């Protein structure tokens, strides 16, 4: 722990030679060439990890990029994408100038316009909307790292219709964690890599927290700690696991419950931890039919109660001196109640969760499940860690050491992108908490500003939408009951994406994946303008691509587009750009300012908070502008309250000016470092005009290191909690209680039973009753439950290649050489059963359609699963690729056959193909069959789409690249 040595790769076997003087070889090799004129330290954007990079500039060009050794995220390492940033920066697909559509939508026919014209078109359109009905602007921002700005902009505009891409990414993981432990994996927390002895990795996507995970895995391997991976596919991180459990997709919850069952049965749970840090002892009303059935028993002030097993009286659950009962059944004021833990024991000790009962469905031998449960218990309880550091808890109790159970876990999209993902994520956290391994040495640790209360405070704004009026808060937040939903009197959604409606009550990240269909259908209402930023919604970011494209181009009876106007900002000519009416060209990541803010997704690690910036290290050679600056100017032109001074003049010059001078609440702005006039404050303080320079001088980031006693038990650590309040992370220095039983969910259930003011429509009641269970449970993913499994016997998944970030990699001359065609990986035995051999071309068929691709046989995959690399298939005419590129001829996109809606229920209603709790897109529910295609169909992918026209003044991509030759010529000329 503490500050690690400079750089991750600093083992003695990774250091420079003891004597780095060049030997006298006499071969004329220049061993000390000049490498750069200057080094600019900024933040990578080749994926979502936000690593620190050193950009070496030579003769005004980027010579090379390496990892920043001091940076808390990557500590000097850099991934395959990061080193290929040059090829992204000089991509032939870069947009050059604002574009206005001239041909039909989707053709790619545009004319170039000046920025002034672009601004006036957008301003006129948006100001009209704002004057009449602000919700007619839907603003969705994709893989945006500036959500604290974009969300605030939407709020100032007055539209509730804002979200980024979280709804189709991993909101189950975020919400599952935030509603349970007040934090989650990836940006929210990390395993204690230095101390853990047993690490379980569930369904990980390799572009979130990827370098930190890789660095961590390297540490575990160096120490010989055991790595267990639970994943249908045995590639990437799973390849190096000591134990690979090739689980059947969608059954992780069952597997986890079986582990919990085993641990409970053997009495291998940390009761002391449960009593101190969770609501395990809180009493739950057990009065079926009553309006408070399943809610906590509370005192007059609303504090939850527990039962003191010594005094045999109800006591406040937060009374540190009490001796609460964990089991039993009690009667208080004539009302029957039991502690949460009793409900947990009742549920998970049931034989339906026994290893033998789940083994077949999981595709994991019962003995394996029992063995893993035994290993977890052994490491957690027999290999306990004790750090000799004294700390004080929230109640003032001093502890002489920090105790830890060195079992840690990490999970990501593989478990969250299912329609049962929310409950599975909760199940994982329940397992961690039962083992007493959250925020302890060797366990899973929070990254500040987490933990926050479970769930965090702010509720979503947007109940009332009025012309020329900002929302009363931010569009995204956390609901605690039906009264917080954004629905009308009849229970119909108020947001275009139906987030926070009965369809998806805990939709903490919105549902971007539903916007195009809903806007097309006018359900719940038609909109006027769809404004989007860097998300490839006409291709790999949408389910059901073929219909999505049709919806984007569909006309109404009057011959007008059903989605009347689309504004889109992107740096590259993606498959979505041709569908925009107005295109605002963005810069590359090396040409812009950005802030990686504590208000959004910061770069903290478990030993302290941090944030970072991007700053322009090279000048754009095109007429492009950073989207955030464009948004700020648009805000000023529209006169949005936060963006203009009282005299109506623009408040911020550009994004850089905003980053420094904007204050969200008093003294708290986008950046936490070097605040105050003199730059001596952290977290809170006046704006500092030199702040950006201080960041640049420090390598592009700010990081604060905790004192030793603040590093663990942050949910109940007085010193940490005081610090968190001072920084503005949490409002009060109160302990964060892990919510094993999620009371807010029970409130929705009660509404489904007819209690309360806001009631779900009749047709939704059974769904709410079933899925808003306050304790995690497992159910079959929706698609699997709805279809004929004989006809569609296989699961189909995508994985992200570690060297690609969604669709971006294919425009990159280096990365696309590694993968320009994706194969469908099929288990050897499955292929043999179907009479398929390596390299065969097959139709991959789902209930939603079919797509053609080439197969590769594999052993390391769950036998009932096929999978392929994500987003390699491309549409002809996009991304600067030539017409014969493998991506558009042999590569394929599984999205074409993933439905965006569930099958119709008894009432004929079709929901989004999403988790019923959070609205997370259920990408991995897909079921398919594969059929060998006819000989004449082999060799090319289908469906094929019309080739896009190229924007004006787009130069054909080069036939040859000799990048770097110029540096050598310059060196040789100088000699």
């Amino acid at each position, binding site marked *: 722990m503490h500050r690690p040595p400079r750089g991750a790769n600093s083992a003695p076997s990774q250091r420079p030679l003891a004597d780095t003087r060049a030997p006298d070889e006499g071969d004329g090799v220049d061993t000390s060439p000049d490498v750069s004129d200057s080094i600019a330290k900024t933040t990578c954007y080749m994926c979502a990890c936000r690593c620190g990079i050193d950009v070496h500039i030579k003769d005004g060009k980027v010579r090379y990029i390496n990892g920043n050794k001091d940076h808390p995220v990557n500590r000097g390492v850099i991934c395959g994408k990061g080193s290929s940033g040059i090829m992204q920066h000089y991509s032939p697909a870069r947009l050059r100038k604002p574009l206005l559509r001239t041909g039909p939508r989707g053709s790619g026919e545009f004319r170039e316009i000046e920025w002034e014209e672009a601004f006036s078109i957008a301003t006129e359109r948006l100001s009209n909307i704002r004057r009449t009905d602000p919700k007619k602007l839907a603003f969705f921002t994709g893989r945006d790292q500036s959500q604290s700005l974009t969300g605030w902009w939407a709020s100032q505009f007055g539209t509730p219709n804002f979200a980024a891409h979280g709804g189709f990414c991993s909101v189950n993981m975020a919400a599952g964690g935030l509603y349970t432990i007040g934090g989650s994996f990836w940006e929210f927390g990390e395993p204690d890599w230095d101390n853990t002895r047993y690490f379980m990795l569930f369904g990980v996507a390799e572009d979130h927290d990827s370098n930190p995970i890789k660095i961590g895995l390297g540490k575990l391997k160096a120490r010989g700690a055991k790595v267990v991976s639970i994943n249908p596919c045995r*590639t990437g991180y799973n390849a190096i696991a000591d134990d690979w459990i090739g689980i059947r997709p969608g059954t992780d919850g069952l597997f986890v419950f079986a582990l919990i069952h085993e641990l409970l049965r053997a009495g291998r749970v940390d009761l002391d931890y449960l009593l101190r840090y969770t609501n395990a002892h809180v009493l739950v009303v057990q009065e079926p039919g009553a309006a408070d059935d399943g809610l906590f028993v509370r005192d007059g002030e609303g504090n939850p109660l527990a039962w003191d097993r010594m005094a045999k009286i109800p006591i406040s659950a937060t009374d540190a001196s009490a001796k609460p009962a964990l089991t039993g059944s009690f009667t208080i004021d004539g009302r029957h109640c039991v502690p949460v833990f009793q409900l947990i024991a009742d549920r998970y000790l049931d034989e339906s969760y026994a290893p033998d009962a789940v083994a077949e469905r999981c595709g994991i031998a019962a003995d394996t499940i029992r063995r893993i449960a035994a290993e977890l218990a052994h490491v957690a309880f027999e290999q306990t860690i004790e750090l000799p550091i004294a700390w004080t808890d929230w109640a003032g109790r001093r502890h002489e050491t920090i105790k830890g159970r060195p079992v840690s876990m990490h999970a990501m999209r593989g478990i969250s992108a299912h329609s049962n993902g929310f409950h599975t994520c909760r199940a994982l956290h329940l397992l961690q908490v039962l083992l007493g391994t959250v925020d302890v040495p060797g366990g899973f640790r929070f990254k500040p500003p987490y933990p926050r209360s479970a769930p965090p405070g702010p509720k979503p704004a947007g109940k009332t939408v009025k012309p020329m009026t900002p929302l009363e808060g931010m569009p995204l937040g956390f609901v605690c009951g039906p009264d917080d939903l954004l629905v009308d009197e009849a229970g119909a959604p108020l947001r275009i994406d139906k987030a926070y409606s009965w369809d998806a009550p805990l939709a903490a990240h919105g549902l971007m994946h539903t916007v195009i269909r809903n806007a097309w259908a006018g359900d719940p209402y038609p909109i006027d303008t769809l404004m989007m930023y860097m998300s490839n919604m006409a291709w790999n970011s949408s389910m059901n691509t073929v219909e999505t494209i049709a919806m984007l181009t569909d006309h109404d009876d009057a011959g007008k587009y059903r989605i009347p106007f689309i504004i889109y900002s992107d740096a590259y000519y993606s498959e979505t750009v041709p569908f925009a009416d107005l295109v605002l060209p963005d810069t590359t990541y090396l040409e812009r300012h950005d802030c990686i803010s504590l208000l959004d997704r910061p770069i903290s690690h478990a030993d302290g908070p941090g944030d970072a910036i991007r700053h322009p290290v090279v000048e754009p050679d095109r007429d492009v502008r950073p989207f955030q600056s464009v948004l700020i100017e648009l805000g000023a032109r529209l006169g949005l309250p936060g963006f203009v001074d009282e005299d109506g003049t623009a408040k911020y010059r550009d994004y850089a000016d905003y980053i420094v001078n904007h204050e969200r609440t008093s003294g708290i702005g986008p950046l936490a470092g070097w605040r105050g006039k003199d730059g001596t404050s952290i977290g809170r303080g006046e704006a500092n005009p030199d702040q950006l320079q201080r960041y640049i001088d420090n390598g592009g980031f700010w990081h604060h290191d905790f004192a030793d006693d603040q590093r663990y038990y942050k949910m109940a650590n007085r010193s940490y909690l005081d610090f968190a309040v001072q920084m503005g992370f949490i409002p009060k220095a109160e302990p964060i209680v892990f919510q094993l039983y999620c009371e807010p969910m029970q409130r929705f259930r009660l509404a489904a039973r007819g209690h309360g003011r806001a009631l779900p429509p009749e047709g939704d009641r059974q769904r709410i009753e079933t899925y808003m269970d306050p304790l995690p449970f497992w159910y079959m993913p929706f698609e699997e439950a709805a279809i004929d499994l004989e006809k569609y016997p296989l699961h189909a998944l995508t994985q992200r290649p570690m060297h690609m970030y969604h669709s971006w990699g294919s425009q990159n001359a280096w990365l696309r*050489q*590694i*993968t*320009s*065609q994706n194969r469908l990986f099929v288990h050897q035995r499955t292929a043999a059963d179907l009479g398929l051999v390596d390299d065969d071309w097959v139709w991959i068929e789902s209930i939603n359609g079919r797509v053609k691709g080439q197969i*590769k046989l*594999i*052993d*390391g995959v769950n036998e009932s699963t096929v999978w392929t690399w994500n987003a390699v298939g491309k549409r002809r005419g996009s991304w600067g690729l030539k017409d014969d590129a*493998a991506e558009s001829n042999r590569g394929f996109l599984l999205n074409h056959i993933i439905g965006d809606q569930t099958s119709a229920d008894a009432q004929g209603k079709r929901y989004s193909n999403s988790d019923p709790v959070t609205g997370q897109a259920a990408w991995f529910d897909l079921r398919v069959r594969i059929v060998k295609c006819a000989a004449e169909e082999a060799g090319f992918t289908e469906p094929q789409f019309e080739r896009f026209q190229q924007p004006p003044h787009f130069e054909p991509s080069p036939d040859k690249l000799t990048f770097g030759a110029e540096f050598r010529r310059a060196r040789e000329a100088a000699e």
Partner: protein
Amino acid sequence: MHPAFSVVFFTTATGAGYGLLALLGVLGGFQIIPPDLWLGFIGLGLALGLIAAGLLSSTGHLGRPERAWRAFSQWRSSWLSREGVASVITFIPAGLFGIGWIFFGRTNGWVAIAGLLATCGAVVTVCTTGMIYASLKPIAQWHSRFTLPGYLIFSAMTGSVLMNALLQGFALGSKVLLAACLLLTMLGWGWKLATWRYNDRLEIATNANTATGLAGGTVRSLEWPHTEENYLLKEMGFRIARKHSARLREITQLLAFALPVLLLVAAFALPWPFAAVVSVIAAMAQFAGMLVERWLFFAEAKHTITLYYGC
């Protein structure tokens, strides 16, 4: 290995050319064939022409042919450099022999010495060529005791069949030479069959396990490091279907061995000019057959790099 035409033609043409040169040198030098202007001119012209064309063709394989002169420098370690040196040095006695024979009309004295030296040069050059291939450990089919003798036998075979065609053309045909041609062609045939048989049964200690250091069990390629073919696969990853290969072996045997044998036997019985015609056809058929043989020599050679690609 990719059968680049420049290299296939190079080894076939220089093999035949050096074979012919060696025979001319030794037969001329020992005065077995008479000094004849046209025979000398055409014979040596053909030999040196084949050699020159082959060498020229081989530069087509070079990335920087203008630097080819540098290849003479590393004769101490490199068989390719030795081949370059030997091939060029051989031109000196060959040239002197030609001048003596063609312009001075003699094949004795210093001309004879030059002829014999040219023969030695030709043999040495063919050896160096053979050693280029025989020394390459990553290609088991080449790194065998069959390769060097094969180069020598095929050089002698194609050279003698050419020599026969030449002499027959000048009505100087000899039963001894015809017999030698027949014997050499039979030897070549046998050697090729033995080589194929050896290669087909080759048990190569190097496999995907030793290539990757992964001991025991099976090692199966899952994904290449790149989707499209790269230099390594284009140059060394050439694959030939078993069926295709069998067919080409048949064609090789027919053209390079069977047909020449039949025609040479016929030449025993036929009078001039028919013997000359069949001799020339035999030489042409054999040369074509040897091009196919040499193409297969490359196509059937498996470089260890293919182990990394699982192909």
